[in-house]
């Protein structure tokens, strides 16, 4: 069973690899990732693809909006990591 903190760390690992030039240590969980990092829709697709590749987690297209902020990522992904 992964804690929310551990889920957050795994998501952060992925984001760090995609937003290569950004400082990901200062991400505010409540604020949309797009407002803090240099990410566009192509990069969000990469987050989805990396979740599938690294953790076998599927995010259907209609749920992409759930990845908007770190907080919503953890809320949405924690049950998927733990199922």
């Amino acid at each position, binding site marked *: 069973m992964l804690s929310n903190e551990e889920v957050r760390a795994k998501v952060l690992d992925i984001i760090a690899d995609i937003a290569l030039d950004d400082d990901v240590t200062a991400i505010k969980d409540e604020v949309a990732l797009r407002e803090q990092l*240099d990410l566009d829709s192509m*990069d969000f697709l990469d987050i989805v693809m990396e979740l599938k590749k690294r953790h076998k987690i599927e995010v259907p297209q209609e749920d992409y909006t759930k990845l908007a902020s770190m907080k919503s990522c953890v809320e949405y992904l924690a049950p998927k990591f733990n199922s």
Partner: protein
Amino acid sequence: MSGLAAGIRLSMYNQKVLIVEKHTITGGLNSYYARGKRKFDVGLHALTNFVSPNDRGKPFNKLMKQLRIPLADFKLTPQNYSLIQFPDQTLKFTNEIEFLTEEIREKFPSQIDGFINLLNHIKNFNETDLTNETVMAKDVVRNFITDKSLVEMIFCPLLIYGSAWENDMDFSQFVIMFKSIFLEGFGRPEGGVRTIIDLLLKRLGEVGGEIRFKAEVTRLITKEGKISAVELNGGEIIECDNVLSSMGLPETMNVLDRETAYTPRTGALSFTESILITDKKPRDLGVDATIIFYNNRPEYLYQKPQTLFDSESAVVCFPNNFKYDSFKDDYEEGVLRVTNIANYDLWNQELMISKENYKAKKEMVFQQSQSILRACGLQDGYTVGFKDIFTPTTIKRYTGHFGGTVYGSIDKSRNGTTPVQGLYICGTDQGFLGIVGSMLSGISMANLHVLQGSSS
């Protein structure tokens, strides 16, 4: 190049990828070849969309981020400056749009407000939205610029560096070209086009993608309206779920195993190019511009000429003249490239008559290129140590593009779809232009049709 980019993206996410390449070198329209000890770039005069590695959010940076190729590996050098040279006026531009804006303020004072408004319109336009409708660009631009001659001058580089249509282009494509050439600008990777190809091939290998050379697709096999396999020259059949084709739209439909009502048209435009290797470098012969868009008529005729080639307009590229540190370029000799719009049918007729005849006509292109170089300010007094001239029939032979087109069909498939499920178009005929556009095309089509499809 679009195929390589697509192949990398798909391999990154565990798709089984096979790239089949007709030739022994990849790159298609942008490739290279060797004659003697010299290596020549084909296609690429300059890389558009110039960015420095810390220029975040620009298209080229974004693309390399998607492919996970560090931008610094390209070792890009910006252009010195380029000229749009018309009979009565010359405009100079650099990679800083402010420079061109000032040129227009000085030379076309009545047009400056319109030009600034046009710039704002372009900056706010989303040219890569796949649902954009086709609108002719000159109609849009004339709302901002009323001086006919300035409209022609602005269109000249954008048309010849990317339009499959004669004399005009779709506004989305105009914006792609405008941003990539005037707002971002020209650069050259160290080593030229082969550096780009090598980096893409290396990345493809790292992510486990496979590539086969001298493997030409001779048939696309369908089953119940869906793609099921490709057949290669030699008869081998490879089964697959999806095909992304960078062959061109008419060329792709031509190898389909069944007739469809969908018959994309072949474009009218092709080119000749003379490459001159000289003992002196252009800088020593009075020219330090990187590219000169030369036009000797009041109007710029970007159309199929009624002669073998149009000697009244040309693009002249001086690869020695990028802004290298202390002007030290990676060529030992001077390299002069002169590109003219040409007529494929007439060249093909010459070739049919005889090889000698064709060669003699190529010599004419070479002679004319020297006059054009003179008109562009190059002093005499150099010796041509080596020359190579390619024609529309050369392009046809090496790229397989019908009519020797470089910018493909006048029908584009903006969302990449075809009447066949699982068969998608990437590259020029998807509609994103230039080297950066072609890579963007490959990535977008791979994302849209294969990766997003598989993740939902």
